[in-house]
Each structure stands twice: as structure tokens, then as C-alpha cells.
């Protein structure tokens, strides 16, 4: 979330799409209700099902799963066509005015410029800004010169002029290596403040989405065109007649993320919010509702393969040394010469050095590049979730340690994961309940004889529940909150971190003992890792939290800060103090400031909210530096005055020459508005990106609608390029993909409010609320298949089959797609069951994970699997 839960109450207009917060975040949803009751805010819900959030909506549209870019693109088109967008904001706070190089081509045929058919990916060289400063007023001349965006012909010419794409050598049998470091952004970009230059981002965007007419939206999504227009009219009404006071929010969740086009769905929403001038404002923003208590924290802390704590990048083989790594990962500002850019990532060297000092202490020296070589390299290969199971299935991955992560149930393609585990040598599961992964060897269909053949050694270690652990979680709004342990672990169960620590210490002991054994490989990082906790076998989490916050390793001085001095050994008050010379240590720069010398900020429990905007600055602590709304500079106009004086977050104080506010300004505190520093300080441009230049997005600088990998129709925009050109199918015999002739029903999966993932199936109370798995289907489909509510049905996909009961409902309607009269029947399945739950084993229903059905295919940017849209067939069982 750029904003926060309570902040939703400040909004005037809400779009909830790709999420179902009434069911999955009910206590956060209260602020949606509050906005409706107190501000009379309007709510539009777009979802494949009329769910409980929809029951609260002023307007509901039933969309076909996976077509969200079409809806949102249509929205952008509607806003631009009807002149309902925030002009000052768009011109100054986004890259709308930036001019794109010649040779860039929009995907009328489904492909952006630079597609390499052989490699199946883009060379993004043509996705870049033009160099050259202010060209305002030259638009007419450019048009006269035929200087429009590229066509198929012009691109060939342009490519001829551009440096040739770097050669990519594909190693047989291995995924292709990633593109080499791309050419950088031009430091002085060309721009046209009139937004009329045919190659300016705004015009390109306008052109890109002009194809998303209400009719086209309807053909793709199945939402009747008039209903779409009604929704678009309502949503954009906040910018009617040049109004800049009102504000709207977008709330989404994994209904977007879990698609092969998921990142671009989110991007389209973010673009729409920028277009409306909603980002950075109270009651605005783009608000991802994370589905779990601490996966925001797990991402911040880099629990995933491709980042290090604080979103630092993981080294790649090409990073020969620290300098090369820092050069690649530290952006230089790229902006119009007359503008300013904070470019906060320019501090990367400080964050990185401090992180390495925290990891390796004295072993991280300037001479050894802060032990840079201790870090494993990635980049030539992908190590994401589905790749892990793929490698294990292929016998390459021999062991797995899973702490509270039920990979079999989580899927996708659960049977592949089960079969993969059969090939592993060992598996360590730390859990609090019996679950599917640790007992994969006894999953349905495996006989005793089969079990004898499974050679995997499985350790099931009893861990601690939330009430038994202290420590911090980070919520969706980036709040770090300490929690206290209430009870001891039951029986012989142990604290998770104590289990992890004992495993690590035992491994370290082995490496210490056998470091001269020729078989022993590279023991140095293990032996040199700092583990100086008072109780190494069960580290106190307060010690760990303090280490994460970071401390001064030498006396520090900085005249610009108050106080200007910090002594060696003291906890640091914020990341502005971090150094790249090894005099600071910090486990995660984003959390620097969470535990300063004065004590933990994450333990603060003062619910005061002086501004009444739901900022609650003294409750817990939020990264970065306790800012509750990110990019809040954008809540003010060019003069530094709030767009809406009744919702003042920050403002520029002319008297002091500094930014002040109810919230902590997410900005350079002394940057005068006249300097035109962009509010999006993490981008080298300083402004928000409608157009993403170069490599960050693998599938295009603009979003484009692509069908889910399994889709009932061909993409109406470009039937010959139906799916995203960069999405790859997996190759093993377990990775099968279905077509609509055999599997005619688009299926989506979701949670119910009564259950939590694969967890509450152990809780009698929740099992009582919803006892059995089911598939929801439209009445019309049920009539066609002669299925009654409660009948047992067999749902099958190309991967596997799933048995459950039918819930026949009015809440899902058949869809008309592609302008045809033929009906498509969407269905949906809640995810919460498996084969080791409380109600499992009841004879009336076979219990299996629903992810037996879902396909192994991922978004090319976030590597998140497409759980939300695939094809199934349904028969009466």
C-alpha cells in the first residue's frame, strides 16, 4: 500500500478490483465502509464473482478473470477522451511530457518494438527517453516531419541506426541468460510540457489505450459496454470539470498479481491513479492488500531469491567486483535539465556496505569489497518458486527446508510438487499443524507399496504459533509492530528462530570441524557470519531487531543532521546516517530508524491522531522513516500547497524553507518547489512512470492486454498474439496446458472470509463456518449440466482433477465475449482444503488441494504463478 488502512477513510471514490477485502481483509474494509458512511464515498467493485465486497458496491461489474488490463486501459482511455485527469500533476509529477526515442513501437499487433522471436523476449533498447531538454512547442513541427511513433516499417530503419542488440547466447537445456546491462537513461531527457509531441509519453499512452474502447473492453472482459461506461463515468467523476480536490483510491490484491500479466495489471492501475493525480494523497494511492501477516516484511527482508534486504539487488555473474555491482545497481538521475531529482537509490553503496557489515562484521573489509564474494550470484538462471519445484522435479534440487510454507497446497500444479518431493533426498518442515507438504508421501493415491519406494527423509519439527513468539510483523501499510509472546510453546515444540539458529550453528560447527576436508566447499561465509547474540542457540529477537536497525561502528559526524554526532556503538536514528565506508552496520536500511537508541519505535502504542487523517504517527513505526503515505509530496501542487486543504498531509513552509506536515514528508526536506524536484524520489527521473524505460518491465513499457495462458478465447486485440510474448510455459511432463475445446470453463480461485489459506482447516470454529470444498457455478451452467446445488462434481484441468460439491449460484453470471451471443460460463473454487485438515477424511468428499488444477506459469516480472485464471471442465461425479 502506498497509503494505509485507516487512510482509506479519506477517499471520495474507490475501485476495488483484483481483491475482495470484505472477505479477506474485513477489519481493513471497515475504512471503506467508513468512507462510504462518513464521506458518502462511492465504491465500484470489479470481480469475476459477485462476492461479499460487491454486496457493498454502488456499482458492480462482473469481469472475466485475467482481463483487468482491458478494463483499466479502457478507464485510462475514458479519462483521457473525456478530459478527466489531473493536468498539473500529470505534466509535472510524471513522465507524461518525456519524449521517447524514435524506433519505439506500440503493440498494435501484440508486440512492442525490440522483440526477439528466437529468444522469446524483448531487447528494450528502443524503450528509452530521447535526449535533449525542453522541446515544448515543437510538436507541430514534429508532426509535420512525420515524426510520430514508430510503425513496423520505421522500426527497421530505426533499429538499423541504433546499436545492435547485444548477443544473447542461449545455453541448450538452460533458461536463456538475462539481457546484459542495458544502456542507461539519458541524463537530460527531452520533454514537451504541452504534452502534444507525438512521441511524448502522454501521446503514446493516449494512442496505446485509444484501442481500449468501451466496445473492445466489453468484448474482452464480458462487461456490457454501457455498464463499463457507467463505471468509468463514476470513477473519473472525481476529475470532472477540472476538480483537483477530490481523491480516489484503488484497492487490489492477488486477483491481479496472480496472473501471467499480473505486473502489468498493477501498472495499469498505478498509471490510472497517476493520471487522476491520486498517488501520494490522503485517500488515494494504489493499495495492495497483502494476503498474509508478514509477507510485506518477508519481501522487505528479502525472503525471495532475487533481492537482498531493503530491495537491494542480488549480484549477478557479470558483477566482477563491488564496483561493477554498484555501478549496475546505483542509478544516476535522468530528468529534464531544468528539473531536480532526489534519486534516492543513489545511496545504494551506503545501504549495501552497511548490510555487508551487519552480515560479516569485521570480515567485511574495504579490502575485500565488504566480502562481496561471499554473496551467491543469480541472474543467469531464475530461482523462483516454480523453478525450485521444477528443479526438484528434475532431480537437481536435493533438499528443502520449509518453515511454515506448505508448498504442496500452495501449488501451482500440486501434483508436480508432490512428485518433485518424491525425488528429493531430504525435507525439513517446521510447522505447527500436520500439513500436506510434510506428508506428501502419504497423499491421496499413494499406496503403502509406493511409500516404500519414496526415499525422501522427512523431518517434521514442531514450531511456535504466533502467540508464542515475539518480534515484528509488517502490515500492508508498511507498519512495523512488535508483538509480545503470551504463552510458552506447547509440549516439546520450539521457537522457530531457535530451531533455525540451532541448525545453522550445527552446520557451522561441521564446517569448522571439517574445513580442511577436501570435500568441504567455501566455508568462509559460514564461518565468518556474525552471530554474536547473547544466546546464539535462541537469539533474543530484540537483539536481532537492533541489529537490523543498525548502529554506528565508529563515531559519526554530519552537520546537516540533528544531533550532528553519533558515537560508535549507538543505534542509528535513520538511514540518512548510513555510510559506504564501513563505519555503519545495518541489516536492512529500510528498517533503519525502527529501533534507535531511545528504544523500539515498533513497540509504540500511542493511538493519537492529531490530524484526524488516520496517520497515527506514534503507533508502531512505518518504513520509510515513519512515513505513512508514500510520495506524499504529490499531495501538494507545484507551489507546495495541498490539493485539498481539508486533507493536509504535508506542505512547504515558505518561512522555514522546509517541508512540514502531519505526516513525515517523503521528500528532500529542504527542496524548494521552485527547484521542481519530482515527488517520486525512488525513480531516477524523480517523476512517476507512465512509460517504463528500459529493462524493469520484461513485457513492455506500457501495459497491454494479454490473455491468460489458458483462455476461452483468442485475444480480441490481436488474435495472433493472444498471450504475452514473454511468458514461458514449463517443459516437464507434469506441465500440461489445456485448451477451451476440452476445458471450456474459465476458473478462478479465491479465499473465503471464513478461512485463512491452508491454516484454519485445523480450527474447528472455522471448519464449522464452511465445512466442505465446493465449486461455484452459474445457475445456467448447472442447468445445462443437470447439476443441483450440493451434487458432487468432478472438476478437471489439463493437470489433474478435483472433487467437490457444486454451489449453484446467481452470483456468477454467464458472460458474452467477443461480441458473440455464445455464453461462456465462469466458475470459481475456494482454496482452503487439502488432505490433512480437520474435516478431511470425511467420507462424503475427497479432500485434495485445489491447486492440483492450477497451471505452472508465471508473470515474467514478479514470477508469481497464474492461480487466478485457467481452464477447467466440470462433470457430475
Amino acid at each position, binding site marked *: 500500500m502506498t497509503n494505509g488502512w485507516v487512510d482509506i477513510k479519506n477517499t471520495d471514490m474507490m475501485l476495488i478490483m483484483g481483491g475482495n477485502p*470484505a*472477505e479477506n481483509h*474485513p*477489519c481493513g*474494509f*471497515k475504512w471503506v*465502509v*467508513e468512507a*462510504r*458512511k462518513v464521506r*458518502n464515498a462511492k465504491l465500484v467493485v470489479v470481480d469475476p464473482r*459477485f462476492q*461479499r*465486497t*460487491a*454486496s*457493498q458496491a454502488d456499482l*458492480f461489474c462482473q469481469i472475466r478473470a485475467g482481463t483487468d488490463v482491458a478494463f483499466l486501459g479502457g478507464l485510462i482511455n475514458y479519462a483521457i477522451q473525456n478530459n478527466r485527469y489531473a493536468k498539473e500533476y500529470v505534466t509535472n509529477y510524471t513522465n507524461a511530457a518525456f519524449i521517447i526515442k524514435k524506433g519505439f513501437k506500440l503493440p498494435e499487433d501484440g508486440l512492442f518494438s525490440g522483440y526477439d522471436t528466437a529468444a522469446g523476449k524483448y531487447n528494450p533498447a528502443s524503450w528509452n527517453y530521447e535526449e535533449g531538454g525542453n522541446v515544448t512547442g515543437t510538436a507541430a513541427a514534429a508532426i509535420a516531419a512525420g515524426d510520430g511513433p514508430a510503425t513496423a516499417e520505421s522500426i527497421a530503419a530505426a533499429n538499423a541506426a541504433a546499436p545492435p542488440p547485444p548477443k544473447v547466447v542461449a545455453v541448450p537445456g538452460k533458461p536463456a541468460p538475462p539481457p546484459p546491462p542495458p544502456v542507461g537513461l539519458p541524463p537530460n531527457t527531452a520533454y514537451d510540457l504541452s504534452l502534444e509531441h507525438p512521441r511524448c509519453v502522454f501521446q503514446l499512452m493516449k494512442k496505446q489505450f485509444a484501442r481500449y474502447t468501451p466496445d473492445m473492453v466489453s468484448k474482452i472482459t464480458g462487461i456490457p459496454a454501457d455498464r463499463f461506461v457507467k463505471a468509468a463515468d463514476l470513477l473519473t467523476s472525481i476529475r470532472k470539470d477540472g476538480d483537483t480536490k477530490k481523491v480516489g483510491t484503488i484497492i487490489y490484491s492477488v486477483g491481479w498479481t496472480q496472473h501471467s500479466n499480473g505486473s502489468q495489471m498493477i501498472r495499469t492501475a498505478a498509471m490510472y491513479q497517476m493520471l487522476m493525480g491520486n498517488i501520494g494523497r490522503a485517500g488515494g494511492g494504489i493499495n495492495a492488500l497483502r494476503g498474509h501477516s508478514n509477507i510485506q516484511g518477508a519481501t522487505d527482508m528479502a525472503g525471495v531469491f532475487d533481492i537482498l534486504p531493503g530491495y537491494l539487488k542480488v549480484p549477478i555473474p557479470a558483477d566482477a567486483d563491488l564496483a561493477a555491482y554498484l555501478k549496475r545497481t546505483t542509478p544516476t538521475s535522468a530528468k529534464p535539465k531544468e528539473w531536480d531529482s532526489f534519486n534516492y537509490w543513489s545511496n545504494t553503496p551506503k545501504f549495501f556496505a552497511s548490510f555487508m557489515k551487519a552480515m560479516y562484521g569485521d570480515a567485511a573489509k574495504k579490502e575485500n569489497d565488504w566480502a562481496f564474494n561471499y554473496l551467491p550470484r543469480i541472474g543467469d538462471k531464475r530461482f523462483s518458486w516454480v523453478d525450485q519445484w521444477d528443479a526438484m522435479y528434475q532431480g537437481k534440487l536435493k533438499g528443502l527446508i520449509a518453515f511454515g510454507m506448505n508448498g504442496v497446497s500452495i501449488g501451482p500444479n500440486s501434483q508436480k510438487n508432490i512428485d518433485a518431493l518424491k525425488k528429493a533426498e531430504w525435507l525439513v518442515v517446521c510447522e505447527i499443524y500436520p500439513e500436506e507438504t510434510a506428508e506428501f508421501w502419504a497423499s491421496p493415491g499413494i499406496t503403502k507399496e509406493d511409500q516404500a519406494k519414496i526415499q525422501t527423509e522427512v523431518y517434521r519439527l514442531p514450531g511456535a504459533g504466533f502467540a508464542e513468539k515475539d518480534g515484528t510483523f509488517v502490515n500492508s501499510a508498511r507498519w512495523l509492530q512488535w508483538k509480545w509472546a503470551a504463552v510458552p510453546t506447547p509440549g516439546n515444540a520450539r521457537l522457530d528462530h531457535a530451531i533455525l539458529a540451532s541448525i545453522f550453528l550445527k552446520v557451522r560447527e561441521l564446517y569448522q570441524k571439517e574445513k580442511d576436508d577436501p570435500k568441504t566447499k567455501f566455508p568462509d561465509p559460514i564461518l565468518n557470519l556474525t552471530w554474536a547474540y547473547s544466546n546464539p542457540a535462541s537469539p533474543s529477537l530484540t537483539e536481532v531487531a537492533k541489529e537490523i536497525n543498525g548502529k554506528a561502528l565508529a563515531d559519526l559526524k554530519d552537520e546537516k543532521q540533528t544531533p550532528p554526532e553519533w558515537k560508535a556503538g549507538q543505534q542509528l536514528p535513520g538511514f540518512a546516517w548510513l555510510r559506504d565506508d564501513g563505519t555503519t552496520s545495518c541489516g536492512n536500511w529500510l528498517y533503519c530508524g525502527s529501533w534507535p537508541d531511545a528504544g523500539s519505535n515498533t513497540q509504540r502504542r500511542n493511538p493519537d491522531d492529531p490530524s484526524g487523517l488516520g496517520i497515527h504517527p506514534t503507533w508502531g513505526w512505518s518504513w520509510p522513516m515513519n512515513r505513512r503515505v508514500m510520495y506524499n509530496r504529490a499531495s501538494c501542487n507545484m507551489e507546495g500547497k495541498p490539493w485539498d486543504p481539508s486533507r493536509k498531509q504535508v506542505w512547504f513552509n515558505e518561512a522555514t524553507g522546509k517541508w512540514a506536515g502531519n505526516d513525515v514528508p517523503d521528500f528532500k526536506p529542504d527542496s524548494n518547489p521552485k527547484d521542481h524536484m519530482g515527488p517520486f524520489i525512488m525513480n531516477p527521473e524523480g517523476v512517476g512512470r507512465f512509460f517504463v524505460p528500459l529493462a524493469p518491465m520484461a513485457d513492455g513499457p506500457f501495459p497491454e492486454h494479454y490473455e491468460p495462458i489458458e483462455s476461452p478465447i483468442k485475444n480480441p486485440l490481436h488474435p495472433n498474439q493472444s498471450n504475452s510474448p514473454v511468458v514461458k510455459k514449463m517443459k516437464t511432463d507434469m506441465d500440461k496446458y489445456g485448451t477451451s475445446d476440452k476445458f471450456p470453463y474459465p476458473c478462478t480461485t479465491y479465499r*473465503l*472470509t*471464513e478461512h485463512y489459506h491452508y491454516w484454519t482447516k485445523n480450527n*474447528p*470454529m*472455522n*471448519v*464449522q*463456518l*464452511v*465445512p*466442505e470444498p*465446493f465449486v461455484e457455478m452459474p445457475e445456467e451452467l448447472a442447468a445445462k449440466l443437470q447439476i443441483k*446445488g*450440493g451434487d458432487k462434481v468432478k472438476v478437471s484441468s489439463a493437470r489433474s482433477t478435483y472433487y467437490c*460439491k*457444486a*454451489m*449453484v*449460484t*446467481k*452470483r456468477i453470471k454467464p458472460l458474452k465475449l467477443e461480441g458473440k451471443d455464445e455464453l461462456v460460463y465462469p466458475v470459481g473454487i475456494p482454496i482452503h482444503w487439502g488432505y490433512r485438515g480437520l474435516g478431511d477424511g470425511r467420507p462424503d468428499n475427497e479432500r485434495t488441494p485445489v491447486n492440483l488444477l492450477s497451471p505452472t506459469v508465471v508473470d515474467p516480472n514478479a514470477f508469481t504463478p497464474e492461480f487466478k485464471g485457467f481452464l477447467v471442465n466440470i462433470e457430475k461425479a
Partner: protein
Amino acid sequence: MSNGTLEIKAISGHSGKAPGSGVSRDYDVCKLVDTTTCIGCKACEVACVEWNGYEFRETTFANTYQTMPETAWNFWNLIKFNEMETDSGMQWLMRKDQCMHCEEPGCLIACPADGAIVQYSNGIVDFNQANCIGCQYCVSGCPFNIPKFNAATKKVYKCTLCSDRVGAGLEPACIKSCPTGCLHFGSKEDMKFEAKKRVDQLIANGHNDAGIYNPGDPDPTPGVSSPGSIGGTHVIYVLNDAKHPENYALPADPSVPLFVKLWKGPLKWIGGLGMLAGLAALFGHYVRYGPKPLDEGDEGRRAQ
């Protein structure tokens, strides 16, 4: 009400007024259920069972999101899900079903057992299982089908409006849990005010039939009472369509069943007086006419 206790206003099966009642200042508590903001999350269902400590109840799939068909002796709070299709699209009406804590409670009226049902001066109607005799007359007296019998303990149970919590100065468990604030708790006066405010907003937003469900409340303020003859309830609803409470599975005109009223009212008095009158008449007859004489002396009297 003071010192964390609740004062009793009415007692079932009890002769005369509740002793000592009516001396302290009166203030009514009330639950406001704004069905227009209910998301059917069932937090109140869980909070209720958790607070009251009841056991897991086996349920089965019934082609609905509703947990069970109706409340149970150990499941006092149930969200009823009603799907409706109107011209403006799908409507999913969710309503929290629980004891309404009537001002004139049919259960208490019907109950013959002294002290099995009490009404506190704040409006809570509470069952005391120690005194319950399990006759289930309360079931037949209730216009909302709320009291439920436990065959194992032979007692009847229902929502207590968390009298233990309210008596100790806390709000009921369901109220506290409700994520959207669809449930609200306070004095009846305040809840009627809040409800009216919300209804006005709904009407302004085009829900012309929005209204309050507060059956039989004698309050003359327009719009805060609805048809019924139970003297108002201590659970009131805001409905999008108050003209058709049956869409929410609520009775349109709830009242204590006629026969319960006849039996607990006229019949009780006629019967009682009739018995007394009968005794008096017989005594009078005896005094006037004496015993019947025998025709032929008294020789038949047994002499032993």
C-alpha cells in the same frame, strides 16, 4: 444500574412485579444492526461462540454461505444470507439473526418457570438455565424463533446480549468483533438516532424505502418504529428496504402469538378466578343445602 450488576425489571413465571424493580434510573441498551454495511463475514458468529465457550458444531454444505439453517442452542448468532435480483442488479442481503431482546418478550410472557427468564431494566432478556424447566413454552412465545432447546441438558438457550459483559461494563462480544461497524451498541435513544441518520443518508442516495426495523416501539418520532406489537426491540435494524422485512427473513409484523397471549392473559385470570369461584360456589352450596340426607335413616354407616 450500578456496581456492575443489572437490575431486574421482569421475571418469568413470577407472581407480581420483580421485587424492588423500578427504583433506579432507567436506561436502555440497544444493538443497532445496519444491514446495509453487513458483509456477512461471520465475525459476530465466531465472537459469540468463542465468548460463550461452546463446542464445535458439525455442519454440512447446503448450497449457501450461511453457516446453518437457523440459530442453535449453542449458536446464538447467525448471519442469514438472502440473494435477491432486482432491476438494478444483484443484491446479497445479509442479516445478523439473534435474540431481539423485545421490550415485551414473548418468551418471558410464555415462560411458566419462576426466574428462568428475566428482563433487566436495561432491556436485556436473559435466560437462567438453573431455573429453566425445559418446557419450551418460550419457543412458542417467541415471534422470531430464537430460543433453542438442548436435548441433553433439557434447557433452553439463547443470546444473552452478553449480560456478563454488559454487567461488567463491556459491550457484547458480537458488537466488539464486527469489522465494518455494521453492529453498534449504545443506549436505545442513541441507536435510534444513529439509525435514523443512516436511513436519511440511504434515502438521499436513492434507497427510497430505507428504514428502521424496531417493531412496536411506542416512540412517536416518525420513522424510528415499525409495525409490530412487542413494544420495540433492543436490537434494531437499518434495512435498505424496510417495506419488505421479509426479504431479510424478518417478520413484517411481529407479535407474541395470539394463543400465548390468550393463555397467559385472559385464560390465566379466567381459569384462576373460575377455580376460586367454583370453590366458593361449592362451599356456598354446602352451607345452604348441607349433605344429602339418606332416605332411610343412617343405618348404612359402617360401625366398626
